[in-house]
């Protein structure tokens, strides 16, 4: 099973599409590792610089409809090779979410109110996430701030995460 802990990268914008996550010009790469330097290269957002902000992260917190656009699985891979195995947001494009769990990664929905609260308290601060998958609770901590937030994922998605993705799950079951 992958790790769902680490420093949080806040992307406070809706509709971040797969071209912004990993531009089409890198689709001729044949290894996931080769995508590493290009994650979020084309994302233009005030206060965000990919070369400065991406490297030491472990999780992304964002807004609605993350991962819209093309079906490319290069989007989760580009996150994965940068050690980002979890994206938390208000909602996700269907195929992106499926691709995340297929890779043994997580795309978890939280309500807008909770996300507002998280952004207000933690954005701009060095924030750590620790995920308790069994209990279904996220632990967020930063200097002088701590918050526990419950979350839910479907049984099948949980099974995929525990198996390390659809390849591992299918290998055990079929």
């Amino acid at each position: 099973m992958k790790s769902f802990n680490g420093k949080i990268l806040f992307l406070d914008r809706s509709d971040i599409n797969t071209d912004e996550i990993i531009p089409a010009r890198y689709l001729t790469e044949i290894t996931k590792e080769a995508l590493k330097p290009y994650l979020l290269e084309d994302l233009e957002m005030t206060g965000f610089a990919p070369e400065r902000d991406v490297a030491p992260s472990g999780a992304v917190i964002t807004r609605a409809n993350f991962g819209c656009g093309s079906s490319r699985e290069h989007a989760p891979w580009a996150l994965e090779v940068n050690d980002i195995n979890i994206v938390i947001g208000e909602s996700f494009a269907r195929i992106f979410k499926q691709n995340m769990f297929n890779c043994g990664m997580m795309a978890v929905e939280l309500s807008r109110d909770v996300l507002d609260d998280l952004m207000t308290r933690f954005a701009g601060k060095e924030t750590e996430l620790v995920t308790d998958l069994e209990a279904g609770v996220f632990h967020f901590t930063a200097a002088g701030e701590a918050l526990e937030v419950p979350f839910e994922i479907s049984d099948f998605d949980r099974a995929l995460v525990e198996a390390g993705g659809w390849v591992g799950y299918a290998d055990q079951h079929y």
Partner: protein
Amino acid sequence: MGKTIAEKIFASHLVDNPSGDIQVIRLDAVFCHEITTPVAITDLEARGMDRVFDPARIKAVIDHVTPAKDSKTAMQGKILREWALRHGIIDFFDIGDNGVCHALFPEKGFVRPGYTIIMGDSHTCTHGAFGAFAAGVGTTDLEVGMLKGVCAFHAPQTMKVSITGELAAGVYAKDVILAVIGKLGVNGATNRVIEFGGPVVDAMSMEARMTLCNMAIEAGGTSGICAPDMTTVTYLWPFIQDEFDSPEAALEAYGAFTADSDAVYAEEIVFHVGDLVPMATFGYKPDQVKPIAEMVGEKVDQVYIGSCTNGRIEDLRVAAEVLKGRHIHKGVRGVLSPATPAVYKAALKEGLIEIFMDAGFCVTNPTCGACLGMSNGVLAEGEVCASTTNRNFNGRMGKGGMVHLMSPASAAATALTGAITNSHIYTGGE
């Protein structure tokens, strides 16, 4: 309660229902090409799982960029080629035998009514024309398909699109599907299988049904599907004659994959085509569609005839009829890519290639090439292409280029004048 075609196929292939409406189904075929498969191969290798579930059920082709245009595309081909060889995948099509996957595989008889098929390619829905469930998938789904021969889907929801009326002369399956997408919108069929039926579809050839199903994904559909009938059986007969005593017997067996009269649909739409005119797209989304008549005179730089949508022999015949004895406009580049070697050979035999060449077209080998802006006719920034393909996304055929999707007849007529043109001025018709 009755079942739709997709529900019947799922019921007959169900392996597991791990939870909720997730259905894991057994796959009859896994199709592979050199753009999406190499990553799946290298990942399986890294996991120490370099195996395939059944080499006879895997079909592979190098079609998107062939011959290779640079070191990266050469490497993609090499990985697929070596993998096919190492696993004894006999149905592997390389340079000389290769053609656009969704045109080549049906032609080889790899698709049957009731089949379940996946491929790492969104236009896999094309194969639904044979009464199969065929869906494009991501790389992990492809990997598991190659390894285990299964795939997980949500239980299929079906949308029925009945096409009624009679097509006017000069109006083709491409015009029908463009109009349907214009009506449904690019998300109109998301998460659904589109079951195409009605008298117009019943009267269509397999080629025309493939054109229809090919673009189901452009309305968001998981797959397109047509009920198998005598047209399907006749097309498949050379491949199934050892399995059945007669075409009638085959038809009866395939009847298992037609919808029940009391099947329950998520949505039903009747689309009347009696007054349909030739259509084309005008923007960067395939649902931005209007009659060609409203676009007449818009200049184009290139005309492309080919692809899994409209690169089959019927399409070449229609275009050649418009081009015969004429020459394309001076300012236009005409590119023809017959979709498969068999299409190319038939076109040679029928004298169509000569008509295209005399008209000033460049004829390329069978490949996807320009359709996805990879080779053999990439647009320059600011250029416009009239194309028989299926996607007009921004930059699809080259960064900064504009694509107008239309039928082969309209594309040929457009090549003759150098601006968007209704083919009826050359052929009579609407």
